[in-house]
């Protein structure tokens, strides 16, 4: 990595003028020259964090670095702090580090290049946003970004993909991919750089009456190469699972980055829930011919989908909640590739293990202890058994709650000991689905489908978070064999944690707690080896990288996010001083 000289003022002004003319503001104090060709991104060096999950092809969030290990982690100290400023909705971001340069984002869609050794800002890019869209969107936040072939790729909350020059932050191309002025939903930021010819990303969507989409783009210019419609457009088998034209407003989308299964030439995505979030058809909902907003199974919403990299065509799918009556969309949760299997922790509280080539489920087991929506998945019949179908207008206890048994904060797999570490959320909700025609006393979104002049959130139900029967709301970190589900150890948290997890070759597991602590555990038994109070919650990424010959641990800190707010609402006495905030805090041994 090479940091160039400080840019002359006159040139800096020129850059700013050009960028402003393009509808953005770029501030540059120095140049960055990280090597980010397609080969480096695909074969991520041990020193780097090349993708949202570190590597594009595994989804493990495992760092092969071991300078920081069990014997010295007690000496870990803060090295630098970078505050990106925008606080609303907290900090969900997983930054990337390529060749000594950190690339990070902040809400709604600002991009930062930072010297990963010192925390000094190299350049920043503040896109001029459609504030009307951003201010009314459920998704006015970012989870990260992507890098490849010298470009930084940012999906914006108002539906654009923007490619920046990794060197100086200048705009290389800026393409409106989703008509967010109409659809409201845009992008959460991070996609997946597959190769010099392909970049894949899904749009947000489940809360809105739209057609959800996943895109294959040309990373050279933003041209759309293919589109996969998550509610079935062009697929007769899928359309048969929707009553009438409800698929046109069926939501879905896909709001977390894919993992790439190069062996089978496919991208593994999760799709969002169908829209509206809840329907009044009760135990008749799977019949596409009954009277309802969206009768039928609603393929391919709330599903894992494997898409051919060349065409975007569906190779296989698995639906994690047919006719989803709970908002258990499948976008949350990493898609890990372990040997010839895809492993996915679902919002539905289950772990799903698939044959990566065929999609055949080989094991589906409950990870959440208190779920009550099904008695389980039958591998022989291919059906979820004894599903709970809440009746419209009747208050029903549903576990897990809307925010899931697993949330979108990914876990980590350590190939050295074969253990998968994951945060599990033990909570329920009192759900009351709106009857036909709506009812103002239970409305959480609009009463009816609203698509003009733009889509309104359509979530016709009331849900109140509550504790599992006989217990309080709580969380676990579990360490287990991801395929068999056998537990090695587990650790209970009275306040549900919501950071990502990180495992390292140093035998460590890192977690960020909701009440402020970054902690390092012994990966073999969960024993606490070190902790530091960051003074705010953790709802984003924890990563490790090497810069200047030194290993760093970095945590995105900042109270916020919808899940964070839900946790706070159940623990107000313990989080009374927490306000929404954002920072990146780096740690090293000296």
């Amino acid at each position: 990595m090479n940091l160039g000289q400080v840019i002359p003022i006159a040139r800096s002004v020129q850059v700013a003028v050009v960028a402003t003319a393009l509808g953005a503001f770029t501030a540059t104090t120095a140049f960055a020259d990280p090597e980010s060709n397609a080969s480096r991104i695909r074969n991520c060096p041990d020193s780097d964090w090349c993708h949202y999950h570190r590597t594009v092809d595994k989804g493990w969030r495992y760092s092969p670095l071991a300078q920081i290990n069990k014997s010295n982690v007690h000496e870990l100290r803060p090295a630098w702090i970078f505050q990106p400023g925008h606080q609303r909705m907290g900090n969900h971001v997983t930054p990337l580090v390529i060749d000594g340069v950190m690339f990070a984002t902040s809400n709604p869609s600002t991009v930062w290049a930072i010297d990963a050794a010192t925390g000094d800002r190299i350049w920043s890019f503040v896109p001029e946003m459609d504030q009307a869209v951003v201010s009314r969107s459920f998704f006015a936040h970012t989870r990260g970004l992507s890098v490849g072939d010298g470009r930084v790729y940012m999906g914006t909350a108002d539906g654009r993909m923007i490619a920046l020059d990794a060197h100086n932050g200048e705009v290389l191309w800026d393409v409106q991919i989703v008509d967010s002025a109409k659809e409201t939903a845009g992008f959460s930021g991070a996609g997946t750089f597959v190769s010099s010819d392909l970049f894949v990303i899904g749009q947000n969507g489940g809360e809105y009456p739209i057609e959800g989409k996943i895109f294959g783009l040309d990373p050279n210019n933003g041209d759309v190469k293919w589109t996969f419609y998550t509610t079935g457009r062009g697929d007769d088998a899928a359309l048969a699972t929707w009553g009438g034209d409800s698929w046109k407003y069926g939501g879905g989308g896909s709001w977390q980055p894919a993992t790439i299964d190069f062996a089978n030439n496919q991208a593994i995505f999760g799709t969002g829930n169908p829209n509206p979030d809840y329907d009044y058809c009760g135990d008749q909902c799977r019949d596409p011919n009954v009277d309802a907003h969206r009768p039928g199974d609603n393929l391919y919403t709330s599903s894992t989908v494997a898409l051919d990299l060349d065409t975007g065509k569906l190779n296989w799918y698995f639906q994690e909640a047919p006719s989803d009556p709970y908002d258990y969309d499948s976008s949350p949760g990493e898609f890990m590739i372990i040997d010839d299997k895809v492993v996915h922790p679902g919002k539905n509280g289950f772990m799903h293990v698939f044959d990566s080539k065929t999609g055949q489920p080989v094991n589906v087991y409950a990870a959440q202890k208190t779920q009550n929506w099904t008695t389980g998945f039958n591998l022989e019949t291919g059906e979820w058994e004894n599903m709970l179908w809440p009746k419209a207008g009747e208050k029903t206890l549903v576990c897990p709650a809307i925010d899931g048994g697993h949330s979108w904060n990914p876990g980590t797999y350590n190939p050295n000991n074969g253990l998968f570490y994951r945060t599990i959320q033990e909570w329920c909700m009192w759900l009351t689905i709106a009857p036909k025609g709506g009812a103002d006393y239970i409305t959480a979104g609009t009463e009816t489908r609203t698509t003009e002049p733009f889509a309104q959130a359509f979530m016709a139900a009331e849900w109140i978070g509550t504790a599992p029967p006989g217990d309080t709301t709580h969380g676990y970190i579990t360490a287990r064999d991801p395929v068999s589900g056998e537990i090695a150890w587990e650790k209970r948290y009275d306040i549900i944690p919501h950071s990502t997890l990180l495992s390292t070759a140093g035998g460590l597991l890192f977690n960020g707690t909701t009440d402020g602590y970054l902690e390092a555990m012994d990966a073999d038994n969960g024993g606490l080896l070190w902790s530091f109070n960051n003074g705010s919650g953790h709802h984003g990424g924890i990563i490790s990288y090497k810069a200047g010959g030194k290993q760093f641990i970095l945590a995105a800190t900042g109270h916020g996010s919808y899940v964070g707010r839900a946790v706070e609402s159940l623990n107000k006495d313990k989080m009374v001083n927490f306000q929404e905030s954002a920072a990146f805090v780096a740690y090293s041994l000296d």
Partner: protein
Amino acid sequence: MILKPFRMWATFAALTLVLAGPTATQAIAEDDAYPKKNPLAGNEEAIEEGARLYFKWCVACHGKHADGVSRFGDYAADLRKFWRGYPEFVRITLNGRTDRQMPPWGGVLDEDEISQIGAYLETLQLEGAVWVAH
């Protein structure tokens, strides 16, 4: 039939502008663009329509009780305690406060509809609410 107070008010305001000098005209336009109190306050028909509109456009953020608690969290304004007076209610609704994630509703809701929503919200007001501007 729903009253159309803004057309009446516009006529009055225009007449006022004609009678005033140029400097005063600007001041009047700034200060008196909207009436100090909601002309539809207490109008049953307007309240009913305002409730319908509220549950279509506002409920997602401000919640079913208008207390600012919704699926989006509990950060939106508690409209039961709206204290800025009716003219500011109209201005904020039309122009938004995008730095606080309040969208602009101009072009979606007309001033009559905003007045109807205001009439509904006035029926929910708690102690401390101020709907009549001074």
